[in-house]
């Protein structure tokens, strides 16, 4: 029995116990990597994805004279769009175009032509405030008849 200055005594460690401790320790060391390698993860890597839906405006005008304008415009870009009618040759015809909200038909707002290639504004549609996507129908007509080609174009600003 050995004694230390404090008066406490303890038994010397038997060599068998010492060997057992060492064996257990070594086994513990060897076992450590087994649990560590299961579920080992790499650092995460990021892939950035970007996809853009471009703004679009389409104008269709079947034979019934109803112009359908559909738009899907990035609200970060324009504030309004304008539908204009172009007449490529001298013609005198009174045009009717809406000035109110969607689908509203107003009285005539002007002539479609002069003696030079003419342009008239049929409507200006504000964009934004929930109006980034939409569709409206407008009648373009006038009394009498005229020959020539009519071009419709939408511009944004």
């Amino acid at each position, binding site marked *: 029995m050995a004694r230390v200055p404090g008066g406490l005594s303890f038994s010397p*460690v038997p060599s068998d116990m010492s060997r057992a401790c060492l064996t257990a*320790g070594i086994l513990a060391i060897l076992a450590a*990597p*087994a649990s560590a390698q*299961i*579920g080992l993860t790499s650092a995460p890597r990021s892939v950035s*994805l*970007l996809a*853009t839906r471009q703004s679009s405006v389409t104008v269709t005008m079947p034979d019934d004279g109803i112009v359908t304008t559909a738009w899907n415009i990035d609200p970060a870009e324009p504030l309004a769009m304008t539908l204009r009618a172009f007449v490529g040759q001298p013609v005198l015809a009174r045009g009717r175009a809406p000035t109110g909200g969607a689908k509203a038909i107003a009285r005539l707002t002007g002539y479609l032509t002069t003696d030079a290639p003419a342009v008239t504004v049929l409507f200006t549609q504000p964009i934004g405030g929930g109006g980034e996507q939409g569709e409206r129908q407008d009648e373009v007509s006038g009394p009498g008849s005229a020959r020539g080609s009519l071009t419709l174009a939408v511009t944004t600003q």
Partner: protein
Amino acid sequence: MTLAPRALLLVLLGTTAARGAAGQVGQLGQAQILSLVAVGPSVLGVTVTSGAVQSIPSLTDNAVNSFPSPVAVSTNWNLNPGQTASVDLVAYFPVPSQALSGAGTQIPSARVLGRMTTGLPVAYTAITQGPVAGVGTAGGSLRLFTQTINGANKVSSRNDNLDLRLDLTGFPTLPAGTLSGTLTLQAVTQ
């Protein structure tokens, strides 16, 4: 796994042995053979060698839109085959319901398809699987490959291409604008 915890255990064992010897005043203990085993740290890494930024400049509504170039991925490892059965590479979105978002809308991960012709999803597959060994998100993951580890490839690497596309078939018309998202790639051992 680093060597530090094992080194600490060795130090503790040495201290225990020394205390026992000090207690046996005047006695000689039996010589002990202490086997030291040094094991290098395991390595598992993933690198995106190209295509880390994927872009579709002009989406088409109600159609499948492919990202123009693949994501080139290199995975490397240095593992103990006695303790690691396989390496899995997982792609996942942190928030599956918002894989891509912007312009006031979100595209869920179910609309994002991935393909790895050298891996498991050889055909385009929605990124809607569950986590693998704890890596990934529920409903927003895709296991890209499972690589068996053995003595012949315990230190090795592999290169794969991940192709991505957006399936907008039947999806509501997207508002004009740009959507963005982040796909995470991570490898895990099992």
